[in-house]
Each structure stands twice: as structure tokens, then as C-alpha cells.
């Protein structure tokens, strides 16, 4: 009986608290309707539209077939979204041979560099000099490199269509985890990044920047 009374008291208090909240015109945080926002993504416009005929690699670049053996390469919206103030650092020389896992190009983020790995073996055919590379508005239409690939193992290393969209979504979720996990270190980040349940983008970016090595390890592996 005592056991039951204690449990009922506990539940009773919760119930009363709900009523008190209702009386005050508030909702208990457990019953707010913001669930969808919370879990889909922390980044505002992370709605993903991945064009057809595009293959995404695990190192967050996309490939688009131009003709037989010739592929356009760019970065995907995940990378684009992770950093807003990055710039291209190094580009391969046309004619250079690239191997799977070599650095395709490098980013400069703050005063650090980030390597984007090539998902294919191939020869660099040309690089895009015309577009202003540092400002990417639509990542899937701005190509960076054209590569002549010897062989594309589409089934293992690439994702396309719905699979790609699901994967990108999951990557965003993982990024959120990553940001949360690294936000604990207050010495580095100082203030934090929450704004009504959503991390403030630029703070998230600051965190990523501070843990660039971890970010590379987590997200840019092939």
C-alpha cells in the first residue's frame, strides 16, 4: 500500500503540474508540437532536392555523368551548409592523375584546411575557373572539376535518388549530434548555440571549425 501511495503521489504531482500549466495557458514541454522541427534538422533550409543523374559520394561530393568516362564534380549541400565562410584553397592541375582517396581539392576554413577526397580513380580533365567558386548558391549546379574516370563503382561508393536524399538527411542529423557533442566544451565555445531549440547556425559553424579534424574524420571519410 505504501508503495502504491508513493507512486500515486508522484503521478499526482505530475498531473497537478499539467493542470497548473494549462491554467496558466502554457504547455508542458513534453507535449509541445515542435517535435518535427527538432528532429528533422537543425539547419533552416536543409530541405534536400538532389537532382536526378547525380551520384553522391561519402566524401560529400557529387558526380554527374557528361559523356562516357567524363564526369562533372561538385560539392553537395551538406558541405555547403556546414560552412558559410569557406574558400577553395587548392585545385588539381589538369592532366594530373588522381587516385581513390586522394585529395581532390582543399577548403580553407578560417585558418585551417579541409581535404575533400576523390571517390574515383581518374585524370583531371579541367577545372571550373569561370564561376566565382567561393560563393556557392546552388551546390548542385556549380561544378568544380571535370574528371576523366577510368571506372566508377556506382553500387558501392555512390548513392543516388531517394537513397541519396535519405543519406543526406541522416548526415545532417549526425552533424547535429556532432555539434551537440562538441558544444559541451564551454571553454572553447563559450556561449552557446541554442535558439528556441535550434542551434544558431553560425555558432554551430564555429564549433565545427574548432573541431575540424573530428569533422573530417566523421564526415569526410570515403
Amino acid at each position, binding site marked *: 500500500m505504501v508503495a502504491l501511495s508513493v507512486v500515486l503521489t508522484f503521478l499526482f504531482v505530475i498531473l497537478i503540474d499539467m493542470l497548473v500549466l494549462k491554467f496558466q495557458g502554457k504547455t508542458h514541454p513534453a507535449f509541445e508540437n515542435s517535435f518535427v522541427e527538432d528532429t528533422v534538422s537543425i539547419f533552416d533550409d536543409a530541405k534536400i532536392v538532389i537532382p536526378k543523374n547525380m551520384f553522391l559520394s561519402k566524401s560529400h561530393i557529387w558526380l554527374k555523368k557528361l559523356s562516357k568516362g567524363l564526369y562533372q564534380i561538385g560539392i553537395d549541400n551538406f558541405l555547403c551548409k556546414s560552412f558559410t565562410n569557406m574558400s577553395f584553397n587548392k585545385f588539381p*592541375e589538369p592532366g594530373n592523375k588522381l587516385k581513390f582517396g586522394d*585529395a581532390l581539392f*582543399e577548403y580553407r576554413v578560417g585558418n585551417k*584546411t579541409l581535404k575533400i577526397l576523390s571517390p574515383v580513380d581518374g585524370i583531371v580533365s579541367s577545372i571550373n575557373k569561370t564561376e566565382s567558386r567561393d560563393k556557392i548558391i546552388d551546390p548542385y549546379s556549380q561544378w568544380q572539376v571535370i574528371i576523366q574516370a577510368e571506372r566508377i563503382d556506382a553500387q558501392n561508393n555512390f548513392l543516388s535518388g531517394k537513397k541519396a536524399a535519405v543519406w543526406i538527411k541522416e548526415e545532417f542529423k549526425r552533424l547535429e549530434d556532432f555539434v551537440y557533442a562538441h558544444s559541451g566544451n564551454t571553454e572553447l565555445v563559450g556561449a552557446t548555440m541554442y535558439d528556441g531549440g535550434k542551434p544558431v547556425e553560425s555558432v554551430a559553424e564555429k564549433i565545427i571549425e574548432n573541431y575540424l*579534424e573530428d569533422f*573530417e*574524420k566523421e564526415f569526410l571519410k570515403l
Partner: protein
Amino acid sequence: MLNGKGILFDVTLCIGCGACYQACKEENDLPNTNKEYLKDHLSENTLTIVEQYGDKYARKLCMHCNEPSCVSVCPVGSFKKNEFGAVIYDKNKCIGCRYCMQACPHKVPRYEWGKTQPRVRKCNLCSKRLKEGKLTACAEACPTEATLFGDMEKLIEVANSRLKNNPTKYYQHIYGLEEAGGGHVLVISPMPFEQLGYTAMLPDKPMPELTMRAMEKIPSVVAAGGIFLTTMYWLTKRKNQIAREEKKQLFKSENRNNGNKYHEEL
């Protein structure tokens, strides 16, 4: 095997006169608690009782176990066994956690609930009298020798011979010899003991063994836990470190090799 003094209570001899009850009260300076002594209960002011079951009478008191639960469980060692085999209590050590009362298989210890500096109360086998070479007060008062005081070896002998010589008169068991590891108070009776209100179904092994089995494992938990956690910490830390260093190494060497070329192109 059993040294020290003890009590043998023979139900067949008890006439329910309450002399032991009264003697105990006088010896321990306890106030009267019930007009009808046969209906009294063990309490902080009553350390032994005589209960009536039909035409039989049964005494209840501390069994002075050989390996007492109360001695084992007390966090500060308020209880100990003395040279006579009696379990005695030191009120100066006691913190009042009452684990002894919870743990006692015979539910004997009583508490001075009404006081602000309460003590645990129970029979102490009249240890003060024993030191003077006397019998316990209850045994001395008993007119029929139903309560017999003496050396444990002698008492066991007496009990066994009574059971043997009168197999029809006695239920063939000495209560308190094996129960919960045995103790210094033995009971023989003409009927099964649970019918006389004694705690039945007690294991023969001393109760503290049950705890010891768990307590024994503590050192190994500490050692194994310490080693496991330290190793895990070291491993995961090392893993992270190596990964970080590899990254750095890779980065450096590639920077040196290709860096310049790329820059020209840009």
C-alpha cells in the same frame, strides 16, 4: 564443540508460573508492562516472555546465536559475543540504524521508541551475574527446572538423553541447536516448534554467510573494475590520439609534396 554457557528450555516441564518473567524484570530493573504476564510481548521493557499455547507454555528470548546476524550487520560493532557465548550490546557505540532488528532471524531485538536517545534492548544472558559465578535470573527462579542453565556441552547432553529416553513424549528435535547456525538457547518440546510460535524453516547455516557470499566479491569487483575502467580509458584515449596524429602526419606530408603545385594553378 560448543563452549560457554547457555539455557535449555523444556516445554514439557514448564507450568507457566511466570517466575522467569518476573525475575528477568527484577534483574534488569524493568517496569511492569502487563497485568497478565502470559499475554505480554517482547518489548524494550520485557526481555523474555512466557506464551501460552493450549496447555503448553513457551518461553521466548534472545537465542544468543553462535554466529549472530546482529553482530554481523551492525555497522559500528555495537554487538559482540562475550566469553560466555552471550550476545551483548554496547549502547555507546550504537547509531540507531536498527539493522539488527531487521536482520535478526528470531525477531528479538527491541527498541526504545519513546526515548530521544534510544537503545536496542534484548536479553544479555545476565552476563553480570555470570561474571559473579551465578546462574541467570530466569534459571534461578524457575521452580520446575524447565529453564536449565549450564555449560553448553552438558545442556546438549541432557537434551539428547531426554529425547532418547522419552521418544514418545518429545518431538525429536532440539530447537536452537542447528537453526541459523545454532545458539546458546535450546528448546525441546512435545510438539513441532512452529506450533509454539518459534520461527520455523530457518536454514541450518548461519545467516551472516548469506551476506558474506556477496561481500566476498567486493575486493574482486574493486580490482576488476579498476583494471577494466583504466584499460578502457587508456584504450579509447589512445585510439583517439593515434587517429589524430595520423591525420596530422598525412596532412603534413601531402602539404609538402603537392602544396606548391596546387597554388601555382590557382
